[in-house]
């Protein structure tokens, strides 16, 4: 540890302090003041950005390799902070549907964020496990937050059972790897694997169990079962957080493990990942076509997006990793914009059904425009962020000769465009069931503007973002 007042764990320490203070505030503040926690939480998250990127020269492994502070970790800390800020802003819009304990919801968001930040820095399975559980436990509670809503409770229960099951897989897999190498440290593991890159059966079994555990997090087929039900049942901001934050967290781990630790054995797992990616893309996009509930549709579509992201993992190259990072960045703005609109529409109509979106362009042009941009970006239409992300992913696939995977990805673009455009059609062409205008509050409006700006910026002025993505993943391969 350094003698300077700066610590490598500055971000986590700061966040822990913020959480502690807000717990105290929540306990003491009057009921009317509790919503202010949102503002305070956002204010508390803002310093994360400078802290995450401070002292770039002092990167490396700390706490005997448990804690890594490399560009990947730094980048994703900023990513999670941004996600959390937007989710908190969303939650404020959603707060009217939450009867009790709104302050604690914000706190749970913060603790989950805290877990994500730890996860981004995890350099040891122990750290990884703990960080993951912090996230998951927070999400179990958040999912069930609408206590009187049957759907919310059902979603929470399902998430808990399946989540715990996958934790079991993960742990069991870790134990095998531990038995094989005698260490839970990533660097040590990598060395051990580099010695025998074909992976003997025991560590291979452990590896597969771990993939299952992380695959569960990112909702990859066949570990995706929870996602549609939980996405649909959870409070919308939580769904948004799950779809962006939790998924990104899973991909950080995948990047670290597959592109870092197990990179020498890529010959073993590339084929598996190609299959998983291909099936996930197709499954998510095909079933999304058949959905009538917006949240459920976005859930399936997010399975599809996980499949796309897995292309980048499967490519097992610097380009693939950069593509994953870039894609996640674009996905953040895009998906959060979409869920913000979902909340605004739910607030006005009380429904998440696609029918509620009929004639939205007449009722609330801003919402319709934002949804339009978001959906097109999800589909991968230029000049939006999603296009560049998909472009990079397909590039990575072609680069490694994964032509069939690239072809599936390309075909799924068409499928996804179909159901996204059906929504566009509802919003822009169909007549509204109820022509009264939907009021759009200023935070929502500005939040949407911000997201759209992000989507467009990442779609048009790609170089700075790409440079950032490339820089963050570079440490994985060095």
């Amino acid at each position, binding site marked *: 540890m350094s003698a300077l007042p700066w610590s490598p764990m500055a971000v986590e320490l700061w966040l822990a302090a913020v959480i502690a203070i807000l717990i105290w505030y929540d306990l003491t503040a009057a009921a009317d003041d509790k919503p202010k926690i949102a503002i305070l939480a956002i204010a508390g998250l803002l310093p994360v950005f400078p802290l995450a990127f401070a002292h770039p020269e002092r990167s490396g492994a700390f706490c005997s390799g448990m804690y890594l502070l490399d560009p990947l970790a730094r980048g994703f800390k900023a990513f999670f902070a941004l996600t959390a800020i937007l989710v908190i802003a969303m939650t404020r819009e959603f707060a009217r549907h939450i009867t009790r304990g709104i302050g604690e919801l914000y706190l749970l968001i913060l603790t989950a964020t805290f877990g994500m930040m730890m996860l981004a820095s995890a350099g040891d399975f122990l750290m990884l496990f703990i960080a993951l559980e912090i996230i998951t436990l927070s999400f179990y509670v958040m999912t069930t937050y609408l206590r009187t809503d049957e759907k919310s409770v059902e979603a929470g229960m399902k998430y808990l059972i399946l989540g715990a*099951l996958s934790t079991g897989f993960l742990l069991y897999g870790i134990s095998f790897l531990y038995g094989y190498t005698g260490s839970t440290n990533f660097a040590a593991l990598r060395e051990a694997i580099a010695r025998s890159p074909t992976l003997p059966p025991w560590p291979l079994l452990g590896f597969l169990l771990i993939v299952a555990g992380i695959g569960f997090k990112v909702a990859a087929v*066949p570990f995706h079962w929870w996602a549609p039900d939980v996405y649909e049942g959870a409070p919308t901001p939580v769904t948004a957080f799950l779809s962006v934050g939790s998924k990104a967290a899973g991909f950080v781990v995948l990047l670290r493990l597959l592109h870092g630790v197990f990179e020498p054995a890529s010959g*073993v797992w590339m084929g598996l990942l190609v299959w998983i990616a291909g099936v996930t893309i197709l499954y998510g996009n095909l*079933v999304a076509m058949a959905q009538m509930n917006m949240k459920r549709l976005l859930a399936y579509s997010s399975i599809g997006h996980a499949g796309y992201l897995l292309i980048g993992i499967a490519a097992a190259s610097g380009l693939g990793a950069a593509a994953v990072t870039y894609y996640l960045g674009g996905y953040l703005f895009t998906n959060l914009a979409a869920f913000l609109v979902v909340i605004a529409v739910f607030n006005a109509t009380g429904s998440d059904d696609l029918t509620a979106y009929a004639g939205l362009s007449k009722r609330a042009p801003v919402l319709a425009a934002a949804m339009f941009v978001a959906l097109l970006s999800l589909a991968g239409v230029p000049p939006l962020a999603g296009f560049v992300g998909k472009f990079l992913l397909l590039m990575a696939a072609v680069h490694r000769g994964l032509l069939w995977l690239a072809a599936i990805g390309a075909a799924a673009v068409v499928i996804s465009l179909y159901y996204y455009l059906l929504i566009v059609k509802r919003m822009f062409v169909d007549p509204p069931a109820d022509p009264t205008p939907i009021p759009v509050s200023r935070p929502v409006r500005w939040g949407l503007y911000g997201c759209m700006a992000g989507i467009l910026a990442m779609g048009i002025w790609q170089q700075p973002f790409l440079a950032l993505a490339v820089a963050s993943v570079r440490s994985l391969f060095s």
Partner: protein
Amino acid sequence: MAACAVILLAGLHRPRLAGAAAIAALGAGFLASLALLAQALGHPGEAVVEHAVPWIAIDGLRIELGVLVDPLAVMMLLVVTGVGSAIFVYSTGYMAGDPGVPRFFAMLSLFACSMLGIVLANNLVMLFIFWELVGVSSYLLIGFWYEKPAAAEAGKKAFLVNRVADFGFILGILLLWTISGATGQERTFAFTELAPRLHELAEGGGVAALGVGLAGALIFCGVLGKSAQFPLHVWLPDAMEGPTPVSALIHAATMVAAGVYLLARCFFLYAEIPAVLALIAYVGGVTAFFAATIAVVQHDIKRILAYSTLSQLGYMVMAIGLGGYGAGMYHLTTHAFFKALLFLGAGCMIHALHTNSIWEMGGLRRAMPVTSATFLIGTLALAGIWPLAGFWSKDEILAIAFHRDLILWAVGTLTAALTAFYMGRLCFVAILGPPRGHHHAREAPRVMTAPLVTLALLSVVGGFLGIPRFVHHHAQVHVEFNPLVAAISTACAIIGLAAAWRLYGRPSTVPVLLQLKWRRLYQLLTHTYYVDDLYRWLIRHGQDRLATVSALFERYVIMRWCVNGAAVTTRAAGYALRYLQTGRVQTYALALFAGLIAIIALMLGAHAS
């Protein structure tokens, strides 16, 4: 110089100037042509002007816009501008009061311009361009009264029949172009360059000669359409739906003559290929006879003239097919005079009586003396009565036929008799016969009769012009005046006229009896040998059925099965997969576990192997 006329006219149809401007322009063209004639007479046998500017010049392809004025072109220019001017003048009277007059003259000018373009063109592509433009303007002019369904149909038919013919024409041009490269030089479309090369190739024989023959036959396809030769003649009678000056200009004097002109223009080509020449001659002969027989039973004055035109065109084509290049052009010229005269005369009658049927006319000799007189002159000229124009030119053709091919001579002579017969029928019924109908006929205004008189004059003296000697080709067949042939044909003509007088000169039941007696034949003729019906059947059962089948294939095979099928299958897959998500958390756990086991088994299996 003459190109100026072309450009002037081309400029004309845009600003929609009225008739005066059009006449002035064409008149100027006529004067220019006269000047050219003077020049041409000074230098017999040579091209007077040849001048070209590049139109498309890219590597491997050079197409020029050029002017080639040789005696042939000069003669044709005179016919087009001269007869054209007369018809233009006439039109101002005929079309007076029609709201579409500016449009009419614009199109008429476009037509004249295109026609001159054909005449002056120095290469095949340019000729083809103006050839097509002639087709377009005739389409527009025939369909001038577009509200009349028959007129609109007729215009369409004319254009499409010509299109079919031009299909062959352009292929012929391309083939010729390709062949022209066989001598090792750059390929060319220009007439003056083509001629020597083809001669060289034909001498060489072999594949090239075959190609030349094929090209010649294909180009003749174009002639079939434009000059309305059998079996592509069907458009011409229908084209009578257009205003009468149009019929006169297009279907008598110029447009249909374009085909004959093309034959003459490409004579250098045909001179090398006797087999195709024979084909041409027989097509001409068949058309001449075939059309004349149909003309015998027509009732519509313009249709009679139209079939007569067909028949006369058959003569011209036959003449050229027999090698009588000069004779064909000679007949073309004289025919232009008297057929224009006849059409314009018929136009006066129609104008006065508002009917086309000869059975509703009659007694016009007194009511319309000028028209009647000139019409009679035209009739006699057409019938080939000495000393009128038709006699000399037709006789020259028959003399050549007599010399070359007796069968065709017989056909030609028989046709001459038929011609005299149906024209006699027309005159005896419509002009000399008793007045019928309720119309109070009046003589046409002077602006219409003046052209008639001019043309009548030309029909009388046209025979003394030495055209065959003026237009000259080294390969042409030239025959001296043959008194025997002349006597026979004149006799036939007189027999024909007499027969017409016997049947129609006075009230008689004989025609009706004949109709009943030879009903089959009569029906065959009134149905124009069922050629139209055959085409209609072909279109309905060939073209339209093919179109319907294609459309069904499009709708069911491509759209429904392939495209929509793929889409529906994909969507169905989505709906089916949806039910995997049962909602039972334990099913999920089982599926998750099963998936994991499957992956482990596969991976360990792969590992073991």
